[in-house]
C-alpha cells in the first residue's frame, strides 16, 4: 500500500504548480485552470487522509463527503467563472489579466 506521504507530496506538488500558475500566468483561462488544479490537489489530500485514518480497511467517509462537496462547488464555480471570462472577453477583446487595471488608472 502506498504510504500516505506519497499522496501528500503529490498533492503538495500539484498545489504548488497550481499556485505558481495562478501567480505567473497572464491568461485568465490558464489561471482559472490552475485554480481548479489547486482544488483537485486539496481533494487528493483529503481522500488520502480519509484512507489513512481508516480502521480495518474501512476509510473514514467524512473526508470523502467533503471531497464530493468540493467537486460540486468547483463545477458551479467553473460555470460562473467561464461566464465571467466570456463576458470579459466580449467587453475587452482580451483575456489577459494585465489589462484588468481600470481602477488603478
Amino acid at each position, binding site marked *: 500500500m502506498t504510504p500516505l506521504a506519497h499522496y501528500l507530496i503529490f498533492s503538495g506538488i500539484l498545489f504548488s504548480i497550481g499556485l505558481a500558475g495562478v*501567480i505567473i*500566468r497572464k491568461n485568465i483561462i490558464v489561471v482559472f485552470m490552475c485554480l481548479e488544479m489547486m482544488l483537485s490537489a486539496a481533494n487528493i489530500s483529503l481522500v488520502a487522509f480519509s484512507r489513512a485514518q481508516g480502521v480495518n480497511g474501512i476509510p473514514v467517509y467524512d473526508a470523502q463527503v467533503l471531497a464530493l462537496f468540493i467537486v460540486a462547488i468547483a463545477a458551479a464555480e467553473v460555470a460562473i467563472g467561464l461566464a465571467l471570462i466570456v463576458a470579459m472577453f466580449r467587453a475587452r477583446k482580451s483575456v489577459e*489579466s*494585465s489589462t484588468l*487595471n481600470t481602477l488603478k488608472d
Partner: protein
Amino acid sequence: MIHNLPWLFLLLPLIVAAIDWLWFSKCPRTAATLSTLSAIATFALCVAYLNGWQTGTPDVYTWLPVAKEGMTSLSMGLVTDALAMRMMLVVTGIGSLVHIFSIGYMKGDTSNLSRYFAGLSIFMFSMSTIVLADNLAMTFIGWEMVGFSSYLLIGHWFNKDSAADAAKKAFITNRVGDFGFLIGILLTLAVFGTITFAEMGGKAAGIAPALLTATVICLFCGAVGKSAQFPLHVWLPDAMEGPTPVSALIHAATMVAAGVYMLVRLQVSMGTEAFTETACITIASVGAITAVLAALMALQQDDIKRVLAYSTLSQLGYMVMAVGLLAGEAAMFHLYTHAWFKALLFLGAGAIIVCCHHEQDIWKMGGLAKRMPLTVLCFLMGTFALIAIPGFSGFFSKEAILHAALETSPVFFWIGAGVAALTTFYMTRLCLVAFCGQARDHGAAEAKEAGPTMLLPLLALAVMAIISGYGFIADFLVPYAGFEAHGFELGLPFYVSMGSLVLGLIAAFIVYGCGKRKTDPLAGNALSTALRKRLYIDSIYDKGLIGGIQEYGAQIIEFADAALIRGMIVQGFAWLTAKIGMLLSWIQNGSLRGYALVAGIGIIIFMFILAFTIPTI
C-alpha cells in the same frame, strides 16, 4: 450685627452697580439717582463712623481656608482705623460730589449713561475695597478692580479711537506694575509669614535687609503703576480721554492716590524699620524724578485737562517722595488736601469744557473770567491751593513735605522747591491764557455759567480747598492716626517756597502778560517741542519697547507657528502619511498576479503559524 455695617461700604455700591446695569440699563435717570444715592449713603455712614457712632470691628470671613499647619488661610476683613476711615471720607465725599456733578456734566450725552453710573459705582466699590482691606490679597483684588473700572470709564466713549486706546494703555501699563505688586505680596507672605496688616508689626527686625528691600521695592512697583510714577506714568495723561468727572474722581483724587495710601499703610503696619535705606532712596528718587519731569511736561501742554493731568503726576511724585523720606504723615496730608483741590480743578475744568462746547484747548479760550465768574472763581481757589499760596490748604501740606525733606535730605528739599516754582508757572499760565483777555474762539465767546448740579459740587470743593489745611479741620480728617497739623512757622522751607511761588508768578506774568497773546511765546524752539511731545518718552515706548516687542515677538511667534506647529506638526504628519502611502502604494499596483502572489504568501504564512506555532488543543 451692627458692627458689620462697614461691609456696606463695599456691598452698597456693588449692588447698585449690578442693579444699574441689569435692570436700569435703559433708564439712565434711575441709574444715576441710585448711584448718587448710594455714594451719598456711604458718605453719611462714613461721617457717622468718624463721629464715633460705632467702634466694633467687623467680622472677618475666611475666604480660602488652608488646612495645613503653618500656612495662612486667606481671609476677608475690614480695617476701621483712622487711616482707613478718614481715607474713606475723602473717597466717598469726593465720590458723592462727582456723582452729582456728573448728572449735570453728562446731560445731553448720547452714550449709555447707565453704563457710566454703573462704572462709577463699581469704582466706589473697588476703591473702598482697597482702603478698607485688612490684608494684601484683598488690597490686590481692589487694586485690579479699580484698574478695571478705570478701564471702563476711560473708555466710556469707546466710539472714539483715542479713548479706546487710552483705556487699553492705562490697563496694560498698570498690569506691568501689578505684576511687581503680586510678586511683592508673595514675598511679603514668605518673609513676614503673613499678609494681614495687623500681624505684620514688629517682624521686620529679624529679617535680612536685602530681603526687606526686595519686598518693599516689589510692592512699590504696584504703586508705580497705580500712582503713575516714572517710568509707568504714560497712561495718566492719556486717561484724560475719559469724561472729566471721571478724571476728577479716579485720575486725580482717589485711585491714583491708592499707591501712596498702600505704601503708607505698609509703613504703618510693617513699621518704618522695614523700609531699608536702599528702598527709601529708590522710592524717594522715583517720586522726585516724576515730580520734576511731569512739572516740566506740564509747562507746554495746551489741553486744559492735560495740564492738570501732568500736575497730578507731579503732585503724586511729591507724595511718593515723602513716603520715601519716611514722612507718611506729610504724604497723607498732601494726599488729602490734593484730593480736594485737584478734584475741584478737574470739575472746574469740566464745567469750563462743557460751557465752551467741548473745547479743551486753552489757546481757544480766553476771557472766561467775565463770562462764568463763579466757576472761574472756584477754579482759582483750586489753583491757589495747588500753587501753595499761604492760607490755602495746599500750602500747609506742601510745607509739611518740604519740612520733612529738609530734615532728611536737602537734595530732595531743593527738588521739591524747584517743582513748586514750575507748578506756579504752569498753573498761572493756564489761568492767564484761559481766563483773561478776549475770547479767541466762538466756543469761549458763547460760554455761560454752569448749571446748579455742576456749581454746587464746585462750591463745596472750593470751601474744602481753602479750609481743609487748617488744624481745626485737618486734625480730624487727615487720614493718619494721631495727625496733628503743625502750625505755620517761619523758617527756611517757608522762605524757599515763598521764593519759588513769587518766582513762578513773576515769570508767568512776564511771559504771558494778561491774556493778550494769541499763541505761546515759548513755543517753537527745540526744548518746548520736546516738552510738548512729553520728552519723547511715549514715542520711545511706542517705537522702541512696544514696537520692538511686537517685532521680535512676532518673529518668535512666527517661528513657533510656521516652523513648529505648521511645519513640523501639521505639515509633518501630512508628509509622513503621504510618504507611507507612496511606499505602500506599489502593493496596490492593479496587477492580478501581484494580488495572487500576496494572497498566496499570506496563506502560506497563515498555514505556517497554524501548523507550527499555535499549540494543538
